[in-house]
């Protein structure tokens, strides 16, 4: 057990405690969680969380009925260009849940399942920033990057082919429908479909 002051002064470098202790345990089940965050501006350090969606995937099934789709109550000033991207106006956001509540719900939802996404590094950084502030730890889960699996698979078949790694390019190449692009839940579903296709078909 490390002293209290150490825990306080090296924030987020330690495993979760208490309510979320189980998150650090190795995962035995057959599910993953696909998630996506929409932020006010595209910046790991300054971007404020506006909405987050997550869905559990078991085999080829996306458990949509139990999906998490949260809009955060925030009055962050958004880049007008970003509004065009995620369509979350200030008015929409005022009806959301509080940030702390959203993070708690999300952590409960994820548990110790592996987390998967498209450019998941960004979502990881955003979420860890908040989780560190609120609960003093970082997500200990295994992370799966969909585009990485894609590159690995493609390279095996065509080592020299130049690859376009945008979300749209992957969806098109994998022939997966793009559903309500730039809504968190829509991107999550498309990403989940990409993952199913890359790992199971």
């Amino acid at each position: 057990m490390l002293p209290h002051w150490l825990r306080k002064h090296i924030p987020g470098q330690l495993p979760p405690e208490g309510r979320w202790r189980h998150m650090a345990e190795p995962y035995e089940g057959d599910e993953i969680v696909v998630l996506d965050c929409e932020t006010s501006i595209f910046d790991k350090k300054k971007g404020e969380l506006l909405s987050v969606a997550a869905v559990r995937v078991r085999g080829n099934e996306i458990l949509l009925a139990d999906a998490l789709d949260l809009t955060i109550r925030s009055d962050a000033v958004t880049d007008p260009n970003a509004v065009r991207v995620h369509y979350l106006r200030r008015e929409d956001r005022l009806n959301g849940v509080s940030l702390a509540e959203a993070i708690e719900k999300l952590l409960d939802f994820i548990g110790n399942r592996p987390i998967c996404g498209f450019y998941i590094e960004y979502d990881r950084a955003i979420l860890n920033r908040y989780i560190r502030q609120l609960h003093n730890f970082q997500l200990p889960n295994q992370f799966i990057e969909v585009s990485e699996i894609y590159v690995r698979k493609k390279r095996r078949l065509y080592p020299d082919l130049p690859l376009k790694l945008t979300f749209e390019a992957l969806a098109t190449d994998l022939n997966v429908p793009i559903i309500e692009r730039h809504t968190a839940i829509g991107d999550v579903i498309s990403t989940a479909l990409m993952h199913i296709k890359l790992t199971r078909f």
Partner: protein
Amino acid sequence: MTLQINLHQPPFSFLSEDQLAWLTQRLDLVFFPAGAVILRKGQSAPGVYIIYKGVVEETDETGEHVFTQYGKEDIFDVRAVLESGCKHQYRALEETLCYLLKAKDFIELLNESRDLSIFFNTDLGTQQSMVEQQDQSVSEFILSRVDDDVIRPAVYVSPQTNLSRVASLMFEKKHDALLVRDGERVGIVTGTDLLKSTLLGDKTKQTRVEDIAQFNLIHVNYGDFLFNALLKMTQHKIERVVVKRDGEIVGLLELMDMLSTFSTHSHIIAMRIEQAKSLKDLVSASRRLENLVATMNNQGVKMIALQELITTLNRRLIHRAFELIFPERLRRAVCILVLGSEGRGEQILKTDQDNAIILENEHDREAVLPLLQQLHQALLDFGYPPCPGGVMFINDSWIDTIDGWKARVRRWLDSGKPEAMMNMAIFMDAEPVCGSPHLFHPIKASWQLESLRASIVSARFAKPALQFETPLTILGNIREDHGKLDIKKGGIFPLVHGVRALAFEQAIDDCNTLERIDRLQEKGLVDAETAQGLKDALIFFWRIRLRQQLERGGDNPGLSQQLDVKLLRSVDRNMLRHALHRVKKFKQTLVSHFRLENF
């Protein structure tokens, strides 16, 4: 999160908004690679699948015998959920995405919604009529029937009652019509009859009512659709009908009582046509006809009733124009025929003018020609586009005397050339609408011949029914061309012409395709099931064509025969597939009946 499928169509449209919202929250999404078996025979299903993307094939357990295929928004396999297990095998033909409604949620919905549970526990026929009924629910009037709410009890008088007493009874009971019972006979006397006979005629207060009562009563049956009553009043130009129940008179149905609940104004249009003083009045009445079609279609009026009403009104329109243009003497010396779909009474949106004229005397030709030009112009003004093939009474080849027409028919039949056969087909659907219908009878008799049975002429006549391929793939699915399908070539024409060919061979008098099918059934040429199937298919084609024509709008929407398959609801797509299969089967029947394989 909105769903990528439309749940506002049967069967889910039977649900309330709350139930739909609940359902939307209960759906999972499942992704199958091409070739994956989704359900095996005997397996119990985790729930019902609703296809979002892809194609699923239902086969027997070996996968060799294909029963059917499912596409976007189709649902499978309800039986596997409701019964012990899956009877067939379901396999994804291509990568397929399905929404999955878990079995327990589906069953909960069935318990919540009576309509949904009836839909899923019944056979296809009941499902179709439920869909039709739901389409109709918009219009209360159309669903209203002749019952105690709308009829007035009848007040009877004896034939000896004098007119003075009749008048005071009408006033007392606030009835505009009384019934006169004379033993077995029942007649009617109205306020208008009283006025006409006394003030305008020579009858007095003491005259017995039997002298002026009318004993040829028009009746409807208790429980009939109000709409049919309206149709009868329009046809007979009367304002009330007697209502009978089990053959007994139970009351009167008054137009005024009915109009107070009726909003489509079809009767008002009929009145305007009848009272038109000029062609200009008629043009404005004809414009209202188009709105009427749209309104009635939205209200879900049954296809047959709609056709009947529009045909009645269209013919009245032409007839009134004819009366305005032709002087009395010439009116009796000619007979104007409408041909093609108008003759069959199957035109709802105006397609084109197909018409011809019979002259009683050749020497009237000079006098009639300019009048025909005027009538033709009037029809153009009413919105009938000219016939591209020139089948119009303004062209020499469609004007002739009785003998001239008989000779023409003989030439057509003898020549056997495709154009001649097509002319015969158009002319065969002729219906006299203005002038003296008796001029037409001897001409019609000239092709209703015993010798046509099993003749080469009949076979040549029937041949064009096969000229277009049925738009079905080898696997039995709808074959579309960039999402479009020509419903006339693919479905309507082969049915209409095939039936016409059989009617031609059998010398059947009727022109309407549905009636011709009934006659063919009576003669034993088709069995009851086939007859019903052909009628269902044809009515269905008409219905979806009309719906899309109205949605598309623009000038002359009636000219478009292209069906946008993507716009069809999945139930309709399913029915379309069944209907096209019936067409295909019917064509095979024609081939063997007319021995067309050697042509």
